[in-house]
């Protein structure tokens, strides 16, 4: 062929592709700070898995009006000192349109200040620090505040289980102390007598003295805050010492690891949480199947929380687009969505309003026990 013909063919080819090819869009960037190293690496890993699963699901279904989501992931080591500069980077250099925290309370609180400062919507997936949403109107939380879950615990033990003599074991950090505060606030309302209170550090794995003291107290129930790596040993040691009181925990226990560590002693442990593993809701079942396939281990609350946060953000983006951050914030505030961790909607402060799932360990796995649906009791503060 002559050169001229080459050129014309080439030009025609280009023109044709330009007309028919989809416009190559810039991905929608969502910042994601999460602990991937350090003491909280296990939870961080789960949160990332859940979030990434949600991103894959959204993109697989066509993205947000054709644009694909992308997570900009940074490891904050669950440290406020690391999280704050990362938040600055995300909002100024990486120019994310929104952010999600897959991290613990301290780092989330520090990052929230930055996101608010830069008028960028931010969702805390599972951090419970009470002041996170108080950073400003751009900050939201899709999980329970500690106090709210604590109140649910009081109703669960006092009214639904009908147990009155309770020992409270509190983990010494913001998670534990806010749970205990919420529990104690409502304990009397449900006829609970707090027989004794004990505290322990997040580094403790040996609970000999506390177990001995509880044996002497002989309570009906034990309300113990903690994470799987503290609650697991605690429950084992309690049962080994012959303490048969019902143990009630919270979402910190939520995961297969707790059952693995506590072994047969985990049977009968009850927790307040947000994930109902026996749910027949397709949103939940598809999440659980997808998570197990992606991560290689069964879903946990942290993974579910990461998943929910991304889906909520995606839903708001569908409504308001992903370019105007102020509009996105307003859309978020008005979002209602059914996700793996429940029916999500926000109050004026940006706190979530949803029911509390109660799960129990039966036959070596977490199962549905009941649901606490009490909007008055569970109402988060408005400011």
């Amino acid at each position, binding site marked *: 062929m002559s050169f001229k013909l080459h050129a014309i063919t080439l030009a025609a080819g280009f023109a044709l592709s330009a007309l028919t090819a989809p416009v190559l869009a810039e991905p929608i960037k969502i910042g994601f700070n999460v602990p991937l*190293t350090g*003491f909280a*690496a*296990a939870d*961080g*890993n789960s949160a990332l898995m859940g979030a990434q699963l949600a991103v894959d699901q959204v993109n697989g279904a066509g993205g947000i009006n054709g644009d694909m989501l992308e997570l900009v992931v940074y490891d904050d080591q669950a440290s406020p000192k690391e999280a704050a500069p990362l938040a600055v980077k995300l909002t100024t250099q990486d120019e994310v349109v929104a952010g999600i925290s897959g991290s613990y309370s301290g780092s989330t609180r520090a990052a929230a200040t930055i996101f608010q400062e830069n008028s960028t919507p931010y969702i805390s997936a599972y951090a419970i620090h009470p002041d996170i949403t108080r950073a400003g109107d751009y900050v939201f939380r899709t999980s329970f505040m500690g106090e709210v879950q604590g109140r649910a615990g009081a109703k669960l033990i006092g009214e639904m289980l009908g147990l009155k003599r309770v020992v409270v074991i509190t983990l*010494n950090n913001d998670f534990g102390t806010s749970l205990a505060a919420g529990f104690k606030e409502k304990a009397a309302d449900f006829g609970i007598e707090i027989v004794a*209170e*004990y*505290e*322990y*550090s997040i*580094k*403790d*794995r*040996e609970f*000999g*003295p*506390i*177990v*001995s*003291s509880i*044996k*002497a107290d002989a309570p009906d129930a034990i309300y113990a805050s903690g994470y799987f*790596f503290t609650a*697991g*040993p605690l429950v*084992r040691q309690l049962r*080994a*010492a*012959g303490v048969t009181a019902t143990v009630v925990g919270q979402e910190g226990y939520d995961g297969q*690891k707790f059952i*693995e*560590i*506590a*072994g047969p002693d985990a049977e009968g442990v009850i927790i307040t949480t947000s994930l109902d593993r026996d749910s027949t809701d397709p949103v939940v079942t598809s999440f659980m199947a997808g998570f197990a396939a992606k991560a290689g*281990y069964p879903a946990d609350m942290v993974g579910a929380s990461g998943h929910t946060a991304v889906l909520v953000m995606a839903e708001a983006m569908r409504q308001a687009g992903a370019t105007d951050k102020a509009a996105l914030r307003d859309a978020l505030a008005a979002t209602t969505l059914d996700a793996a961790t429940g029916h999500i909607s926000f109050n004026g402060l940006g706190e979530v309003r949803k029911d509390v799932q109660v799960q129990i360990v039966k036959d070596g796995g977490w199962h549905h026990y009941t649901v606490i649906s009490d909007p008055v009791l569970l109402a988060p503060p408005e400011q």
Partner: protein
Amino acid sequence: MLILDLTVQGLVQGAIYALIALGLTLVYGLLRILHVAHAALFTLGAYLGVIITNQTGSFALALVVAMVVVGVVGIGIYRFAYKPMLSQPPLVALIASIGLFIASEEIYRLVFGAYSISFTDPPLQTQVEILPGISLSYARLMVVGIALVFLSVLGWLSASTRTGIAWRATVTDPDMARSCGINIENVRYLNFFIGSALAAAAGVMVALLNNQVEPTMGAVPSYKALAIIVMGGLGSVRGTLAASLALGVIEAFGTIYIGHLLDRDAIAFAFLILVLMIRPQGLLAKG
């Protein structure tokens, strides 16, 4: 009776501390190094203990293998990390040891995963009543037993055997020992082997008690053991034992009765500072 029960709990915890701190005091006595990386060997022992038990079904085998392997690793740490630094001021070895420890925690996380690992079928769980109203599992009794056994063996070794005398001579005066024909290097190797093997045993036992091995499980022992050996009088084996048991009991009572004022570590260090202000050389230091 609660007071008795708490005391027993405290002594068991003290025995665990003793197992960990013994190795540390051996190294300090010999080389004047604060061997923070000792806690990394503790964790390694725990991992090996769980993995081997789960693979082979034999806890005894796992314990022995863990002790031997970690003992050798300990010698390696001396040979490749500390030996080249002996002429430097002690702060250098301390920071290097801390660096090693941090690196080890990360290696464990990368190799074994961030999640903890557990025994699939934890042995020695049956409870036995040792005093009216106070039951301990075989595992807990074993910890105390192991601590006692190793201490006695160490005591006998250092007092009555040629190896032990060579060891003591090297601690007191390395140059003189060398001129007496003692192979200092061999003494040091043995020292690190024994100390590290003890740490591994402690790791395996703690893994058994908690049914949980995590990459960061050495964090608390890393500084707590330091506090213990200082409290006992640096380099004194008996002092370390006394301090370990005392600390275990103090923590047991402290966390229950003043836990709302100070947390566990603060109680431990308050006790340490108190001891040092009264007796700056430590409880049973040699003058």
